[in-house]
Every structure is written in C-alpha cells, then in structure tokens.
C-alpha cells in the first residue's frame, strides 16, 4: 500500500519535470509533430476497424432486443448513436489505445532508460523528462479527441451499413434515429473525456517506462504495468467525469 503512495509521489515529481520550461521551443515543436504521426495517425486504422464493427454489432443487437410493435424502428439508430457517443468512442477506444499506445510509450522510454539513452540526454544538459514526454502528451491530447470524433462517425456508419446489407431495418429509419434528440453537449462531454484519458494514458505509461531499470524483462513488465495502471485510472476518471459533466 505504501508503495502505491510512493509511486504517486514520484509520478507528480516527474510531471513537475515534464512541465518545466523547455530549452528550445523549435525542437519541441518538431518532436510533437513526429509524435502526432507515431502515436496518433498510426492509430487511425485500428480505431476505424474496431469502430465500424462495434457500430454494426450494436445496431444488430438493438434490432433484436428492440423488436416490438410498440417501439419505433428509429430507436435502434438512436440507441446506436448514444452508445457510440457516450461511451464507446471515448472510454472503450481509450482502453484500446491504452493497450496500443501506452505499451508502445512505456517500452520505448523504458528501453531508452536501460540503454542509458536517457542518461546521455541528461549529460548533454537536456531535461530528458520534458524532452521525451511533453511532445507525447501534447500530441495525444490533441489527436485522441480527433480519433474519438472519427470513431463516432465511423461507428454510426457501420450501423448504417449493416442496416443496408442485412435489411434488418429501413436505412432511412436508422438515419432518423441518428438525428433524433440531438444533444451537442454529449459530444463535447465525450471529447473532453478523451482529452483527459489521453493525458492519463501518456503520462502514466511514460512514468512506468521512465523509472524502468534492469533488463529487457523489466521493460516488458513496465509496459504491462502501464496498460493496467492507465486502464484502471481511465475507469475511475470515467466515473468522476461523468458525475461532473452529465449530472
């Protein structure tokens, strides 16, 4: 138990280093663009594939569970939209990204630690924490909400496609459902959540990697730890943010 508090303390000390004044903005700017590509753009295919299938599956399931003469057909489209916007495109996509991006960050930084690349940066007089971690945090906080937004659209498109191809419902009804009871705040809520989750994933994973020591086994352990710790933290903050933003 004491260990957890110690880790939390070290996490905040590291964040203090990360957010201290950068040596040279131009370098950070270039590194941030690189990270947008490495962590953001490279995650588009995975997010897109999962979203299109989940959108289709939700529509399929809803059409079965809502099969009743008393429930209008467009409710299926409505249910798909709500699920995608409220929960799937932010929280579930964040968990998936924690697995992909989080383990990537932890193993990259962990490897740099054990091969003394971080020491080498420190010797050059570079604030290694800021140099390595800040661009990743900025890149993901900027790009993950875009991933969430595209996941919403792609998921709803997936539902539309399954409606067209299987004929389980009239596509126009589905579209009507998407339009039904449109609340812009729900989208904002989802994107705000994703911005917070992006910070959680990146900072916790970087923390796990930054303090890795020993050999490649430890790096593997650090990246597992990163995924577990950031997933749990995401769940906790999902609850807190929903309480604050929606009620």
């Amino acid at each position, binding site marked *: 138990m004491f260990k957890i508090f110690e880790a939390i303390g070290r996490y905040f000390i590291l964040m203090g280093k990360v957010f201290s004044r950068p*040596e*040279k903005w131009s*370098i950070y700017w270039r590194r941030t663009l690189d990270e947008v590509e490495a962590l953001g753009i490279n995650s588009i295919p995975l997010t897109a594939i999962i979203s299109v299938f989940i959108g289709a599956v939700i529509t399929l399931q809803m059409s079965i569970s809502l099969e009743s003469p008393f429930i209008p057909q467009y409710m299926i489209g409505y249910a798909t939209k709500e699920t995608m916007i409220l929960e799937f495109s932010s929280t579930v996509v964040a968990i998936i990204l924690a697995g992909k991006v989080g383990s990537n960050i932890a193993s990259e930084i962990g*490897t*740099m630690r054990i*091969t*003394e*690349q971080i*020491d*080498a*940066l*420190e*010797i*050059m*007089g*570079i604030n290694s924490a800021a140099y390595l971690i800040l661009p990743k945090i900025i890149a993901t906080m900027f790009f993950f909400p875009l991933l969430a937004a595209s996941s919403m659209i792609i998921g709803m498109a997936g539902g539309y496609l399954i409606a067209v191809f299987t004929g389980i419902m009239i596509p126009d009804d589905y579209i009507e459902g998407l339009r039904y009871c449109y609340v812009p705040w729900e989208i904002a809520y989802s994107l705000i959540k994703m911005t917070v989750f992006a910070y959680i994933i990146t900072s916790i994973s970087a923390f796990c990697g930054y303090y890795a020591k020993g050999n490649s086994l430890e790096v593997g352990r650090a990246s597992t730890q990163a995924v577990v710790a950031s997933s749990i933290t995401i769940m906790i903050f999902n609850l807190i943010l929903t309480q604050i933003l929606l009620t």
Partner: protein
Amino acid sequence: MIKCHNIFKSFDGRTVLDDISVEFETGKTNLIIGRSGSGKTVLLKTLVGLHTPDSGSIHFDDVCYTELSFEERKRIRKDIGMIFQGGALIDSSTVYENVRLPLDLFTNQSAAEKDERVRFCLERVELSHAGHLYPSELSGGMIKRAAIARAIVLNPKYLFCDEPNSGLDPQTSIVIDNLIHDITVEYNITTIINTHDMNSVMEIGEKIVYIHQGKKWWEGNKDEILHADNKELNDFVFASAMAKRAKMSL
C-alpha cells in the same frame, strides 16, 4: 583537472563507493580500472552528476560541482562529453541527427554552420559515409565512434568514457583507444576512461586508478603498474595465463 574528495555512495544501504579521493589530470587519458562490479560506472556517473554522492566533493577545475544549483550544473554539462558503455545513441535518430542534437539544443548556429561542425566531427571519427544510418544498422565499433563524435561536437573540456571498447575485437579496441587519446591531447581535454581491458592500460594508461570493491587500492601509471606490489592489483593485472607467464620471466 577534475578532483574528487572522500566520495561515498551507497544504494539501499549497500556501500558501492567507499571514500574515494582522486585527481584526474588535464590533457591526459586517466584510467579507472577494476573488475566488473567494482563500482567504476557508479564512480563515473557520480563524477558527472548522474548519481548524487552521499558525501564528498567534486571539483571541475576551480568549480565545486557538488555545491552548484541545478541550473548552474547545466552550464557545466555543456562542457562535458560522455561515451556510454552501449553507445546510448538515440535509436530513433540517424547518426547525423545524433551528432547534431547538442548543437540544435545549445547553439544558435545556422543550419550551414551546424552541418559543417557535424561533418567535421564525423570525419574525425571516420564515419563520414555513415551519417544517414540508424544506430541499429551500425557495427559495435561504429556505434562507439558515433558516440565519440556526439561527445566532442560541442568541444568539451571534460570527456568521460565508460568501457569504450567493451564488446569490440582487440584491433578495433586499439583504434578506439588511440582515437580517444589523440582527441584528448589535440584539444587538451581532461579525459576519464573506465576499463577492465589491460591492453588499453598498456596503450594509453597515463594515469591509472585501481578500484576494488568500491575502494581506491592503487594509483600510478602504466610503467609503474607492472612492478606494483599490491596483491589485489597483481591479480587483476596478471589475470590471464599468458600474462602470468610473462610476469614469471619479468
């Protein structure tokens, strides 16, 4: 000149450096020798400030490094070059970018000036043809040479090398040793080298400190080391069967 006084360092209650005081001289290759695990790397990292000593002081020429604030230390670090055991090149950058990184961060030179400096340093270590390669595409000797180029790009006054020829064949080792020695003399650098390689000792050991179990056991130069009457040191120096036989006939 780099001086350290009564350095103690322990990890989790285990003493690794036990009262070390040494003076390293300018324009010479100073060697720290000792068996694996004797504390050489910890000593080197303590000298450059990657580890904080539990007690003791470290002087870089007239400046007491251990008394400096974080910001003041940064200024001295620009005068320090370090070559790590595995090279520690940034994996995601090419050799050229690795060497240019310190220039990008700490100088306001134009792109052309930086380019000229990087090319000069790569030329110096005979890597002009390899600038576009990534660290994973280099041989062991090339990694060490690229690390040397990066370490000297800002014209350091102090150069630290952790086992610069570990993992290299004897011939390449001599090339690296001589390269470091030549650079040291050429630019009048205070160079400190960790090694357990007796070939390096005999080749470039202008000042030698022998560390055993975290303590300083002996210091001298390459001519004195063969005649030292310190048992631990002799066991280290004459560890190989061939060297033992040579000692008999000495």
